[in-house]
């Protein structure tokens, strides 16, 4: 792209130290985008020490669909020399570099060669001057927000309103100083911003968006889904979900407790479910491993339960603040014995909200544990999405203690409907809920026939659920010979790959799986139509390059054209990276034919 061009979407990367408040300015920018009906997606890195350190916040916003946080930035903001050095390669040729010339000394020649417009702004100095600070750098981020409001021609008043909201409840002077900083940034003579690019802002549709992170969406989705009890133990990146639920559930008459460890947390959640209260637990990596014993009890005893796994890099303590999709295998197989459970994976932040409602419903309807997979990228990413139709979505949970004439907790000829204690049973025979193999009343049974039938009963739930699922939709080119298959947070990246492939003349199609256990129907028929089925996922590849989902799909369909595009580097996929890998595979599979 050359300047000045009119662009509908833009990627801004703010690079500094986390102490500079780059997360809060990025969040406000994203929220602003959401408010004026733009698509938006963010990406941030977490500094390696608790007290902070170098980090970035990237905002991809625009009126055209935003599916990824962006590969390369259009605008890079560099607060420090290290910010400049580490991130200048992430700025596209022809982009704009805004830097704090108190701290940054760029190589102007190199920039010129890459047609980058350097814009020196004495941010630290001007902020201190405006706010009258003491040399602490508070307000610098808001100054930057003003500057970006100018660059992107955003509505100043709306941005100012956002700043006021942000500091609501704070001291009067804090609000005033920040507004001063905003104004100073907005007023700063940055040069001819029109020469950078023209940012298209469409008239608003009038529809409202909400802007939140995946962790927030999971928590509010749980409440919308009727969850009223939860238990957890802190671990990154799951912690935020429990912190929100701990704070919010009492408003709904519910309770969330922090337990002494993850083993207690899942035991408590099962106890809550036994009591008839829709319940959840959750964790990340190590905590999920610890929950697998009790998970097996939930399967065996047929109690409804939702378990959230916000995945991070593994194995063991691994990479706590990086993304990876390597918990699919444990989600499917964790716990000894044949222990069928439902596994769902959220595709994006919006889906984090809806999938929790769905998970709670499935858990209740089938009396089964449901694992919801999210990941570190979703957890920390902001996205704007249409305000959900809460009126039609939200169900008021109620405790059903209706008296029953008789009750079998494990009827061989009917689905389980848990009768919580407090339920009177007129025939006087009360149920035992158990982890031992049992007869219909929950009494221990070592009978061969009973174990056969009960085993079948437990897995039959998944068959019944599968029968309800619609065949998954294929996205992209009708004439594609290659299908990309994905799951979880890579959804947007894969769609972008497909979009780009279509314009680039090597058309691809894509299929995204939300239901991982049971899988939706018709996969074998769909796959059979393609020469190549490439399963894109963030974990390690084995046979045929297949990762954890790839191997599952090979087992399921036995189609050898299933191959994997995987990586384990702690980062998400970039669009260009996937495209390149796809091309590589297509070339290598084509080659033998031409020899």
């Amino acid at each position, binding site marked *: 792209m050359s300047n000045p061009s009119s662009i509908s979407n833009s990627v801004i990367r703010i690079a500094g130290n986390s102490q500079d408040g780059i997360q809060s300015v990025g969040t406000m920018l994203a929220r602003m985008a959401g408010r004026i009906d733009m698509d938006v997606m963010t990406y941030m890195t977490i500094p390696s020490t608790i007290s902070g350190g170098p980090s970035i916040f990237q905002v991809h916003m625009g009126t055209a669909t935003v599916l990824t946080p962006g590969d390369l930035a259009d605008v890079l903001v560099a607060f420090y020399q290290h910010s400049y050095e580490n991130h200048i390669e992430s700025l596209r040729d022809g982009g704009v570099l805004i830097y704090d010339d108190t701290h940054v000394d760029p190589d102007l020649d190199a920039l010129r060669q890459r047609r980058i417009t350097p814009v020196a702004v004495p941010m630290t100095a001007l902020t201190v001057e405006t706010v009258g600070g003491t040399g602490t750098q508070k307000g610098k981020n808001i100054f930057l927000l003003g500057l970006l409001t100018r660059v992107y021609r955003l509505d100043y008043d709306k941005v100012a309103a956002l700043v006021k909201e942000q500091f609501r409840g704070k001291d009067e002077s804090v609000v005033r100083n920040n507004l001063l900083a905003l104004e100073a940034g907005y007023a700063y003579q940055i040069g001819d911003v029109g020469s950078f690019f023209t940012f298209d802002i469409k008239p608003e549709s009038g529809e409202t968006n909400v802007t939140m992170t995946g962790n927030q969406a999971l928590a509010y989705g749980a409440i919308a889904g009727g969850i009223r*009890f939860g*238990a957890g133990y802190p671990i990154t990146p799951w912690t935020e979900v429990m912190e929100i639920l701990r704070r919010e559930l009492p408003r709904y008459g519910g*309770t969330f407790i922090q337990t002494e460890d993850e083993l207690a947390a899942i035991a408590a959640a099962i*106890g809550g479910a036994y*009591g008839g209260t829709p319940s959840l637990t959750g964790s990340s990596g190590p905590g999920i491993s610890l929950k697998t014993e*009790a998970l097996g009890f939930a399967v065996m005893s047929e109690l409804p339960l939702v378990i959230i796994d916000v995945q991070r890099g593994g194995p063991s303590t691994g990479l706590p603040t990086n993304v990876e999709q390597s918990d699919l295998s444990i989600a499917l197989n964790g716990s000894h014995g044949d222990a069928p459970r439902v596994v769902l994976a959220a595709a994006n932040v919006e889906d984090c909200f809806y999938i929790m409602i769905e998970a709670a419903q499935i858990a209740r309807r089938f009396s089964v544990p449901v694992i919801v997979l999210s990941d570190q990228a979703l957890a920390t990413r902001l996205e704007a999405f249409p305000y959900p139709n809460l009126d039609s979505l939200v169900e008021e949970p109620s*405790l059903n203690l209706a*008296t029953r004439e008789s009750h079998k907790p494990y009827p061989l000829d009917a689905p389980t409907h848990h009768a919580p204690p407090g339920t009177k049973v007129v025939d006087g025979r009360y149920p035992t*809920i158990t982890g031992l193999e049992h007869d219909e009343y929950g009494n221990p049974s070592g009978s061969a026939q009973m174990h056969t039938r009960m085993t079948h009963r437990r897995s039959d739930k998944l068959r019944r659920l599968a029968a309800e699922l619609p065949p998954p939709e294929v996205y992209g080119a009708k004439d594609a010979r290659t299908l990309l298959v994905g799951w979880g947070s890579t959804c947007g990246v894969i769609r972008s790959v497909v979009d780009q492939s279509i314009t680039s003349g090597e058309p691809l199609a894509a299929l995204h799986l939300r239901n991982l256990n049971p899988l939706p129907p018709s996969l074998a028929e769909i796959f059979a139509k393609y020469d190549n089925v490439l399963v894109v996922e963030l974990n390690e590849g084995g046979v045929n390059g297949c990762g954890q989902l790839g191997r599952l799909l090979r087992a399921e369909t036995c189609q050898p054209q299933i191959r994997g595009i995987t990586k384990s580097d702690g980062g998400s996929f970039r669009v260009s990276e996937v495209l390149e890998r796809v091309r590589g595979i297509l070339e290598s599979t084509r080659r033998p034919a031409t020899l």
Partner: protein
Amino acid sequence: METDTLTIEPAEPMTRDDLKADRPTWCPGCGDFSVLAMYQKFLVDRQYPQEKIATLSGIGCSSRFPYFINTHSVHFIHGRIIPFATALSLTRPELFPFVIIGDGDAFSIGGNHLTHAARKNVNLNVIILNNQVYGLTKKQTSPTSPLGFRSKTDPWGSRMTPVNPARQIIGAGATFFARASAANPKHLIQMYERMSAHEGFSVLEVLSECVQFFKGSFDGASSGKGGDFVEIGPDHDVTDEGAAFALAEKPFPGVFGVFHEVRRTTLNEMEQENIRAVAPAELQRPTVDKLKDSFNRLT
């Protein structure tokens, strides 16, 4: 939140027959029989509504109670019934849950949960059937096995200082601790009464002989077997923690009765506090309206 659709006949009093379930599979002579019988008698005496009683266990011979009593029951996994029951107690305060577990379940694999529940003063009744051995897995050393006990994992006799249940549980912050013996059913049922009357984390240790793997272990506490069943005297101040610790240090077979009973805010009350801190009008508003408040802040 409760709904009760069927109309019920005026309730007949609950009898011990109502509470009978499968015939216990314990070894003939096992102490657990008497603990079960007295549990049934106690429930009948109290006339709790049958459907509101929950018998909750872990894994072990003692944890087989759920199959032998006709109440809502749970046979959970080894060592984790305390957090399970904690959740039930917090979310369903109108029920009458009783946790019944063995010494291995309580003090070995489940020790941490017991300690934390005591500290947080969960409103819960926990009955620990102490036979000083792993019964179900056939004679390994338990944390309460006495010095010198020969088990399959200590064939040369255990040399580890056993857990002192009274000391550990009171030390951890339990607001009620009592001790009884399966061999003295009359006293046992009194202890059930005392325990159930207490609000807060209540533990009742019951010596219950494993005739299969540790025969004669509690003869010393049985007057019928040449031993002495010494009850705590009326001058013991149950609110005096120091005095309770002193009782705990008495050598085997120790003393029986209520060691300790104090009132402290329960976890249940604390969590209810959090709900009560929400304005009543706010609590009554429909979920969807409250969710909208949150979503509106996120536009």
